[in-house]
């Protein structure tokens, strides 16, 4: 591997020797695909016939009137097949797997969105599929576990470490070092060793390309600000990539959890809690102690509950190109309720972080301004978490009744 994928001081490929040849093969397959003019066309074709691309850009007139600030547009990644931007990355990597001639895929998942997307891709392309998911996430994202299993994937609950996303990534790597000859690891976000950050943001850049054309078409000018939630960073890099060379202000929103000063959050770039380290194969900001041990993270949104962050985003922060903020669990639930009531849209808890930050800031801007929010996914998967957060009595009654029917 010649280029090691550095973005400023961040990135690299800190991999065990056994995987070197596998990474060389992946770098090679990706470079060839990128340089093949038919490949992007094939990708767009898959995304427009199997998923729902181009996803629409929705003008949120009611929210705009409510805040009396900038005109709010929403990029609808929730309308992808399986309900999130994860489909973009997964179908793209699926095409790479075909080119490499492998027959099995593995993936980590936090919210379960990436796992479900990978399982659909595997079903569609005829690959065997195993999904690693932290035990804590298996418990809080049951509907997605159900769908993964229905889709024929094996879901393996991870009982090691903090039992969430980062631990699922470790287990996926452990599978890969054993089975790499026939297996591709479909990493779900713009993290991990080179070339994963590049691969994932390459496929997600379709969001930004479309959004730029769409906003130019309906408004004839660029937005003033763009908001995206940041777990590992893939949906944010996807939409931001269409606007990096313009004067557009880019805002990445991390999980503030119970508040960044409570220690129970996942804010690596917006708070001072993150520091530079090397884990899970890459160098970036992590939430870690002085010794370099990774710390526990917290978010109401499983997909943002991650200890590291994309090295590409870390370098954008260093250069001041992207601003990072954090939204707390309760701000997120408020933003979610408001969006549901005003627009009839149901963002995923992850995506609702972007909405929450946008709502804090939009009143500052006049109606001449446009802001763009990336709705990375839909909230259907979160029904248990949201119902619990709102202590919904009807839902509780329903669950109790179902429990009784199943004889517990």
């Amino acid at each position, binding site marked *: 591997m010649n280029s090691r994928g550095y973005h400023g001081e961040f990135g690299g490929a800190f991999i065990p*020797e056994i995987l070197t040849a596998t990474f060389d093969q992946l770098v090679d397959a990706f470079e060839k695909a990128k340089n093949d003019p038919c490949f992007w066309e094939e990708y767009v074709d898959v995304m427009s016939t199997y998923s729902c691309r181009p996803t629409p850009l929705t003008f949120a007139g009611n929210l705009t009137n409510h805040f009396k600030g900038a005109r709010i547009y929403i990029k609808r990644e929730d309308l992808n097949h399986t309900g999130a931007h994860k489909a973009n990355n997964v179908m793209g990597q699926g095409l790479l797997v075909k080119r490499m001639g492998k027959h099995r895929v593995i993936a980590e998942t936090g919210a379960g969105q990436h796992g479900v997307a990978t399982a659909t891709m595997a079903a569609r392309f005829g690959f065997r599929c195993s999904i690693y998911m932290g035990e804590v996430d298996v418990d809080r994202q049951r509907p997605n576990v159900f769908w993964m299993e229905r889709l024929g994937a094996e879901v393996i609950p991870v009982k090691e470490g903090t039992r969430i996303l*980062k631990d699922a990534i470790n287990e996926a790597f452990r599978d890969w070092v054993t089975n790499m000859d026939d297996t591709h690891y479909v990493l779900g976000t713009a993290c991990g060793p080179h070339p994963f950050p590049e691969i994932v943001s390459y496929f997600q850049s379709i969001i930004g390309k479309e959004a730029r054309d769409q906003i130019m078409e309906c408004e004839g000018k660029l937005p003033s600000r763009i908001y995206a939630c940041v777990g590992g960073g893939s949906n944010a890099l996807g939409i931001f990539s269409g606007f990096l060379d313009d004067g557009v202000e880019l805002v990445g929103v991390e999980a503030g959890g119970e508040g960044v000063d409570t220690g129970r959050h996942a804010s690596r770039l917006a708070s001072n809690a993150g520091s530079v380290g090397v884990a899970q194969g890459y160098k970036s900001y992590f939430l870690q102690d002085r010794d370099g041990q990774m710390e526990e993270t917290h978010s109401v949104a499983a997909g943002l509950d991650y200890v590291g962050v994309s090295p590409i985003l870390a370098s954008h922060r260093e250069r001041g190109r992207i601003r990072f903020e954090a939204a707390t669990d309760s701000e997120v639930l408020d933003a979610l309720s408001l969006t549901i009531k005003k627009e009839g849209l149901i963002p995923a808890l992850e995506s609702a972080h972007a909405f929450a930050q946008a709502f804090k800031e939009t009143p500052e801007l006049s109606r001449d301004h446009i802001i763009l929010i990336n709705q990375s996914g839909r909230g259907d998967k979160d029904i248990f978490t949201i119902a619990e957060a709102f202590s919904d009595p009807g839902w509780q009654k329903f669950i109790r009744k179902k429990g009784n029917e199943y004889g517990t």
Partner: protein
Amino acid sequence: MALETYLRNRLKKKDVLLMTHLVLGYPSLEDSFNIIEAMVEGGVDLMELQIPFTEPIADGPVIVRANQRALEGGATVGSCLHLAEHVVRTFDIPFLIMTYYNILFRYGVHDFASAMAERGLRGAIVPDLPPEEGKEYLEAMQKHDLAPILIFSPATSNDRMKYLDSFGKGFIYCVSRKGVTGADTNFSAELTSYLARCRSASRLPLAVGFGLKNKAHMEFLKGNADIAVIGSQIIRIMEQEGMAGIRNFIKRLR
């Protein structure tokens, strides 16, 4: 004496040397000391001391759990280095540090090398640090006269083995198979021919690790390699049979 010279001298008397592994702080720092003592008395030739890390990506379930328990028990980099110092002073065999790169990175790579040298440690194994990413580390190890142990795997090409060998000192750690530590290894003709490949690519003694459990495995290495590495099996025996078990186990191997 250089680590390689020590190993070559020992190899004049024994066909295969024994390197064992343990996770510092598991089940406790005190127990770690006692385990090391039992292993030295049993006749171990050198030892790798693992400083626990929350993300031990190259390790299998047994060592992963030991890492986790050690950290839960309060082991820190400082307390592990302190124990290592005590161990080096007490026992007359070479000790190496095994850990993941973030531990060195956070400590400061040069400071870590200097801390190892000050404590009389002889080298380090850092499985997630290929030489391409390890320029600073390799320089620091060189400066402090410590052995950076490089790793070969069955997926490593001959050319790459030569490249890795050019950075290595002391010995080469040959991973016996794909996968992580702990699982069973097939001691087959395939392994023999892989070790022959390693032999012709390196000027250093060869250690073989991953999946070694018993005397038969050590016998297999005779003529094919120089050092047998036993890791997960030590932890299993300690968990099942305690300290006396470890002592017997090592004696039976020798």
